[in-house]
C-alpha cells in the first residue's frame, strides 16, 4: 500500500459540542468537528483548544501536534 500525504488544512463542515463521554479524556465539554480538507478527503477530529461558542461552519482549521505528541485540529485565523 502506498501512502499519499495531504496537507492537514481545511474548513469545518459540521461541529458538535460533546457533553457526555465514557472516557475521562478529553474532559467534557469538548468539540468534535467534521473537516473538508483542502486536498479533498473529509475527516472527523477533536478540535483542540476551541471554545464551544466560537466554532463556526466554514471556519478554517489546521492539524497540530501538542506537547504530548497528540494530533488534533486547531482553529486558525
Amino acid at each position, binding site marked *: 500500500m502506498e501512502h499519499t500525504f495531504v496537507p492537514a488544512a481545511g474548513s469545518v463542515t*459540521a461541529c458538535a459540542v460533546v*457533553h457526555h463521554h465514557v472516557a475521562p479524556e478529553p474532559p467534557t465539554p469538548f468539540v468534535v468537528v467534521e473537516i473538508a480538507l483542502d486536498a479533498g478527503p473529509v475527516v472527523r477530529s477533536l478540535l483542540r483548544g476551541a471554545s464551544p461558542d466560537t466554532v463556526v461552519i466554514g471556519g478554517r482549521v489546521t492539524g497540530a501536534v501538542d506537547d504530548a505528541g497528540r494530533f488534533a485540529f486547531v482553529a486558525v485565523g
Partner: protein
Amino acid sequence: MGRHPLTQRPVHVAGIGLHRYQSRSATSYAELGVVAVREALADAGIGWPDVEAAVVGSALLGMAPGRIMLARLGASGLSINQVENASASGSTAVAQAVLMVASGLHDVVLAVGVDKPEPWRVAPAQAGIGSLEGGLVAPFTHFALLSSQYQAEHGLTVEQLAAVAVKNHRNGAANPYAQRQKVRTLDEVLDGPISGPFTRLQCCPVGEGAAAVIVMSADAVDRFGLKPARCPVFRASVQRSQGFVEPGGNPDAVLTVDTAQRAFDMAGVGPRDIDVVEMHDAFTIEEILYLEALGFCGPGEAAPLLETGAWDVGGRCAVSPSGGLLAMGHPLGPTGTGQVVEVARQLRGEAGVRQQPGARYGLTHMVGIGAVCVVHILEKGET
C-alpha cells in the same frame, strides 16, 4: 440479482408478541424472550409444536442464546438460527423468517428479537483500521455532526428538532410496551445536553426487552383457520449495506434511499401509499433525515411538515406511532422485530388510541452499524 421468492409465495404475519421494553433488570433474557413468544403463539392461536423454525436476533447476548431460551417452550427439535446485525438484528431475523416461508422451505416460522444491555464489543473497532477521531465519535456524536450539517443547510432549529421527541414521547405514553411512557413538553425535551443539539430525551434509552413475530404461508393461515384480516401480508423485504458515498455525504441516508427504493419497487407502491411507518429514530435528527430519504417529503420539508401534524397519528402518515426508538426504546435485538409487531397491529386496526385511521400499508426501517439497512413493507390482510 434474482427475484425475491416473496413475489411468488405470499408471507403473512400471523402472531405478534412483546415483552415490555424496560431498563436493565434482574429478568433473564430467556424469560424476556419466552414472554414475547408465548404472547405471539396465543395471538396466532397455535401451539409451540406448530412452529417449524425460529430465527433469533440479538446483538449483545453472545454465542447461542436461542436454544436454551426456546427449550423452555418444549424441546421440539425445530431449526434454530441466530442472526446478529447490530441495530438491525431483529429486522434481519424477520427478513430471514420471511425468506424461509417465501422459499417454500417452511410454512410457520418464528422471528424473535431479544437482548439485555450487556457491554458492547463492536467488531469494526477491532478491524485494525485506525481512525483520526480515536473513539471520540459515539453514535450520538455521529448523528450530532449529521444534524449540524442539516441545520446549516436547511435552517432547522433546535426547537424543530426537539419536536420530533415531543411527538414520539406522546406516542410512547399511549403504548403499554414502551420503555418511556410519559408525555414530555418541549422544555423538558430541551433539558440535559448530551452532544451537539441532542439532549437526553432526544436520544433513545438503553434497555432490554423482547419481540416476537410468527410468519406463515397462506396455506398455513388457511389450515389453522386464522382470520385473513388479522394476517397482514409482506409486500417487500429488502436488506442492503453501505456502498460508495461521496466525501461528506450521509451514509445512513444514502443507504436508506437505496434500500427503500428497492422495497417500493418490490411492493409496487410508493411513499405516498404508506399510512404508518416505524423507523430508526434513535436520535431525533434521524427521523428528519429518513423521512426525506424514504421519499415521504422533499429535502428540508420534514420538520415544517411535522409542525403541521403530518406525521402524527391521524395525520398524513403516522410516524413511529409506537413511540419509536426514542420512547418505545431500542434494546437492539428486539427493535426491528418490534417494529413489525407495531405495524401489524396498526394494519389489523388493533392499535387502540395509537391507531392510524384506515391504515392499509405500513413500512419498517432499521439501520445498523456497518452500515446495513433493512426495510419491510406490509399490507393489510384481506377483509
